[in-house]
């Protein structure tokens, strides 16, 4: 569980927000919606242990990410995946290189298993056979989906997604919703930063949006009516789940 207590952030001498309380439980999907430049990415970075909040604290599994041990912070990062709003497309870097990097972060993954999972995950996000494609040659939607697949490779327990739905495009909202629901069933926590909650995601079993500072926080139940049958997420490298995600 990720909990934020009275969190506040200041940017360029201006208070973005303060007194924000959050509790993101295991197996939940949260959408933090807000207008441009309201500090969504800042909040995401604070929640994932990347940027110390100017006020308040973030606690994961009962220990502060910032005031606790560096090892706790490291293990939390190892258990987290992040898809940034824009994925830099380094010259000459292919999609497979990104998976190779993810495999390095995951630990020891045999090449054959890496290849198999890469194929499976790329198919899952609608990019079959894109291994050799240069990252810089992909469209914004393809990049966002490839970045998601790269993160899913490590089967992170916490998934932070910055503008993924907006980048992936409307036609992917339902498919990704079904995928996230499948992930949530496996007790993974998904935190999404978006301009707005997709229309089809509103209502249902989720809780009504709550206003917090400039944000609208919604715990959503992704639509049940996705593509035929919920997508199944390939098992993590090594075949067994790493609940801490930590590299020993």
């Amino acid at each position, binding site marked *: 569980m990720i909990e934020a207590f009275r969190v506040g952030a200041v940017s360029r001498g201006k208070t973005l927000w303060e007194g924000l309380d959050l509790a993101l439980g295991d197996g939940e999907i949260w959408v933090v919606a807000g207008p441009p430049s309201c500090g969504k990415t800042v909040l995401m970075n604070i929640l994932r242990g*990347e940027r110390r909040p100017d006020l308040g604290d973030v606690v994961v599994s009962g220990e502060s990410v910032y005031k606790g041990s560096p090892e706790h912070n*490291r*293990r*939390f*990062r*190892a*258990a*987290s*995946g*992040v898809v940034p709003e824009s994925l*830099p497309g*380094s010259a000459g870097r292919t999609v497979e*290189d990104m998976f*190779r*990097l*993810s*495999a*390095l*972060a995951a*630990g*020891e*993954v045999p090449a054959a298993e890496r290849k198999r999972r890469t194929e499976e995950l790329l198919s899952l996000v609608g990019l079959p056979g894109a291994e050799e494609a240069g990252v810089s040659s992909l469209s914004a939607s393809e990049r966002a989906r490839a970045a998601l697949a790269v993160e899913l490779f*490590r089967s992170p327990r916490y998934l932070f997604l910055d503008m993924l739905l907006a980048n992936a495009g409307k036609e992917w909202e339902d498919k990704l919703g079904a995928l996230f629901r499948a992930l949530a069933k496996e007790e993974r926590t998904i935190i999404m930063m978006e301009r707005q909650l997709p229309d089809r995601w509103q209502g249902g079993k989720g809780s009504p949006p709550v206003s917090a500072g400039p944000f609208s926080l919604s715990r959503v139940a992704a639509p049940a009516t996705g593509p035929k049958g919920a997508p199944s997420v390939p098992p993590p490298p090594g075949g067994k789940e790493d609940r801490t*995600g*930590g*590299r020993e």
Partner: protein
Amino acid sequence: MNIPSLWWIDWSLHGKSMRRETVGRFLLCFLAASYFLAMLLSGGVDRFLAGQYTITAILRIGVPDDEGGGIAGKVIAVAPVREALYRDPEQAWKEFLGAYPGLESLRSAGRIPLPGFVEIRLRPGWMSEEGIAQVRSALEPLPQVEKILSGGEIMPRLLRMKWWANVLLWSGFALVCVVFAVFLFLQEKARAARLLPDVSFLADRGVPGGLVATRRAAGAFVTGGLLALLAAGASCAALLFLAGRFSPVRVVVGSAQELQDARFALPAVLFLLFATMLQVLASLAGWRAAFPKGR
């Protein structure tokens, strides 16, 4: 097989440039190894000078051949001596006539007017005033020896010049090592800078930069050791080939077979260790230069 994958992060993510860099690295390491082996075998200019320089012990007229041969046998036991050959008066006369033709008339009634002599060559490592003095002190007490020719007053000057020539040659080796080190450092720094986004990616996912740096250094130890071993092996093979084919190489550098001598084992191991550690240090220094502390 559980391969420590972070050891090979450079190969895994920048395989193409790593292959290119390794070729350059191998060539420089080969150059350094060849230089070092050549210096080790030749002792700089020592081998060449030892091949040219002789100490001549002129025997008294009338010393029998068996005694002359005995002196040569005794003097070869002296540490600095590589070769000692006795020339009887007949051979001495022939050599004299070869050098000064037309003086046959000096030989009257079959008597040879020249004495026999012992020609002594030193080992390359003993081309020094101390080595010459040792040979002289072994010869001087012998009653059969009339005179010892060992270069006279010019020798100290010649040996000083030899010392400076060797210093110059070893400085050349040091320069090759410095160029090698700078080359390695620049390669490593550039590659570490190219790894920046990858390192940020890994750090974001709980793999600390320090861990990546130390694992890369461990990988550099393995690949650097292999590279040094291969380069040294290739330079041995090249030396063997060149010395077998070209006699000037044999005269100046010596034969590569001599490298099997046990006295070369320690310097060879030290060179391999030095070349390996240079690559490990370059990996760490390149990393530190690309990612200064606190970044």
